[in-house]
């Protein structure tokens, strides 16, 4: 099942609608990496609000996703992690290292705006 990816200004927004299989998640990762290149996006938001479980595979894949997208010069923000899911992730001992997180889409956009503005000012 494909995850819809929307383009908003310089950003790509992927909203996960329902539980994803491993294959779906990998497909999303590859699609985002490709599209960041195509559209020269500067930021990517992955909305995981609909995920009721994030296990080690999901965490690892999102981490890889953020890493690969950074190599293409863009920032990734994961938004919408549910409180229960966040709790399970830390209990399991997983660390979403090197990945920015925000509460929801609105916060994610604000985060990217701030981060990229600061970045461009510095350059």
């Amino acid at each position, binding site marked *: 099942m494909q995850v819809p990816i929307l383009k908003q200004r310089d950003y790509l927004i992927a909203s996960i609608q329902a539980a994803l299989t491993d294959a779906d998640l990998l497909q999303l990762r590859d699609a985002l990496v490709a599209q960041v290149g195509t559209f020269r996006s500067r930021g990517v938001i992955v909305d995981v609000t609909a995920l009721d479980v994030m296990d080690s595979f999901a965490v690892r894949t999102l981490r890889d996703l953020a890493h690969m997208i950074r190599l293409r010069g863009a920032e990734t923000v994961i*938004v919408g*992690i549910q*409180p*229960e899911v*966040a*709790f399970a*992730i*830390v*209990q399991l001992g997983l*660390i*979403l290292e090197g990945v920015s*997180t*925000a*509460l*929801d889409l609105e*916060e*994610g956009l604000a*985060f990217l705006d701030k981060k990229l503005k600061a970045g461009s000012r510095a350059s």
Partner: protein
Amino acid sequence: MQPLSEASVALLRELVAHLRQSRTQLREEWARRITEAQLLTAMSKDEIFAEATAVYDNYVDVLETGSVEALQAYARNLSERIIPRGVQTHEVVGIVLLLRDVLARSLFAKYQADFTKLNRVLDAYEPAANRIANTVAVSFVQERERVIRAQQEAIRELSTPVLPVRERLLILPVIGTVDPLRARQLTEQLLRGIRTNRARVVVMDITGVPAMDATVANHLVLTVEAARLLGATVIVTGLSPELAQTLVNIGVDLSKMNTVGDLQGGIEEAERLLGYKVSPLEESPQQP
């Protein structure tokens, strides 16, 4: 429980039949004894009689079948109903023992002429009766413990409020000892609070926490990370030197944890992170 010999089984069947036959009068005697012993004072006579009937029948059924499941279910159900009425453990144990006595005496009366037979009857009756008393008492105690736990849970929830102070800023004052259960409840409340209030910064003040063992300290670290997953930064304030040592001992890199000396300092740091600038009012030149 040891399997009964065929003779015992036959004997049990005989005394169960007797107990069923004498049901009415034995039940009445039991109810009378309960009142005499001043047990179940929280319940009315009618209520006592109604419950006595149910318990009696269940009791005799278990003597007959040896199966405690039905009795356990009944005992649990009974406990659920009477605990809110204030019935105490000693009362429940008391009434079951009284029933055991009433039935035993009835058996004595019936078989007193034949001492050998009486002994065999008691050999069959006593283990079964004791098992029943045990089952009912244990079920009651377990239900009580469940109720107490639920009450403690409610108290814990009340005692750890998550306070929205400014937009995007939450304060979580933690007071008192934190056991693993409370720690987890704290985390759940905090995470929900972050989402409800859309907080970006949380100041968790642990000045009022005297001590924390390694498990709870570790949990604190997990909480900070879980909050980050929701996009919130946690500033820990009021970390005592002892607590800091505990954290270091469990391998926490304190330089990675956002800590500030006291609550006030924590709030200021939070405001800084949020981009608030608190500036003093300018002196008005027109002041007299």
